[in-house]
C-alpha cells in the first residue's frame, strides 16, 4: 500500500502563511491523485479540475485549524469525496440488491463450484487495448464503486483510509469493491479481447 508521509507542524505553518513554495508542494503532491478520483466519480476533465481547485481552496481556508496529526492525503480525499457527493446530490447508499450479485451467483452450482469459470484474461491484461477496455467497462459501474476501486487499485490506499474517506464501514467497502471487480470482470470477459 502507498504510504503518505504525515506532515509536520513546521510545514503546516508555512502553508498557513501561504508561503508559495509550501502551497505549490501540497498541490504537486496531491493534485493528480485527486483529479483521478474525481474522474472516477464520473466528472469530466474540466469539472474534475474545478473540483480539485475547490478542494485546495477549502484546504487553505481551513488550514489554520487543521490537525497535523491526521494524514493530509486522507483529509483532502475526504473533502473531495464530499464535494463530489454535493454536486451529485447523492450519498453512498449501496443498495441491498444489485443485478451483478445475481450474475455472480449464476456462475456457481448449488454446491458453490464454478459453472462458468473465470476466463483467462492474461492476454488482455498485457495488451494495448486494456486502457480502452477498462474505460468502456468502468462506465457500467456505480460512481461509488469506481471511486472505491480507484482509491484501492490506482492510489493503493488501505482499507481504514478508504473507509474514512468514503465514510463507509469495512463491510460496505468490501461490497463496493466486490461489485466493482465482479462487474469489470464480466464486462472484460464479454468483450472477447482476452480470448486467444
Amino acid at each position: 500500500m502507498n504510504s503518505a508521509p504525515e506532515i509536520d507542524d513546521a510545514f503546516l505553518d508555512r502553508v498557513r502563511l501561504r508561503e508559495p513554495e509550501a502551497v505549490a508542494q501540497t498541490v504537486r503532491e496531491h493534485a493528480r491523485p485527486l483529479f483521478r478520483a474525481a474522474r472516477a466519480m464520473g466528472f469530466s476533465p474540466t469539472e474534475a479540475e474545478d473540483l480539485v481547485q475547490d478542494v485546495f481552496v477549502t484546504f487553505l481556508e481551513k488550514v489554520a485549524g487543521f490537525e497535523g496529526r491526521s494524514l493530509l492525503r486522507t483529509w483532502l480525499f475526504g473533502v473531495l469525496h464530499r464535494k463530489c457527493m454535493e454536486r451529485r446530490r447523492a450519498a453512498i447508499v449501496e443498495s441491498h440488491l444489485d443485478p451483478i450479485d445475481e450474475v455472480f451467483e449464476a456462475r456457481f452450482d448449488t454446491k458453490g463450484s464454478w459453472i462458468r469459470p473465470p476466463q483467462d484474461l492474461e492476454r488482455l491484461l498485457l495488451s494495448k487495448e486494456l486502457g480502452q477496455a477498462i474505460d468502456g467497462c468502468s462506465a457500467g459501474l456505480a460512481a461509488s464503486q469506481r471511486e472505491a476501486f480507484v482509491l484501492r487499485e490506482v492510489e493503493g490506499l488501505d482499507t481504514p483510509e478508504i473507509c474514512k474517506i468514503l465514510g463507509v464501514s469495512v463491510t460496505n467497502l468490501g461490497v463496493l469493491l466486490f461489485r466493482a471487480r465482479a462487474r469489470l470482470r464480466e464486462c472484460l470477459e464479454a468483450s472477447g479481447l482476452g480470448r486467444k
Partner: protein
Amino acid sequence: MISCRNIARLVLSDQIDSQTWLKRMEIRMHLLMCRLCSRLFRQNKDLGEAVKRIPDSAPEDLEERLIARLSR
C-alpha cells in the same frame, strides 16, 4: 470445506487478509488445489497492476495551472 463461490467472494472484496489464521490457511490450500480460483486470484492482482499503468486523463500542466490560480 470452503467453496469456490466463497473464495471468489473473498478475493473480489479484498477480505482474505481479514480472515482468521486458520481460514487463511484453508484459503491458501484451496488456491493451491483449484486452478480456476487460483486464476481468479492471480488475475485480480494483475488487473490491479494493469490499471496503475493506464495513463490518466489529467492535463500535463494541471499542477502549474492550479498553483497559478491559487496564488491569485
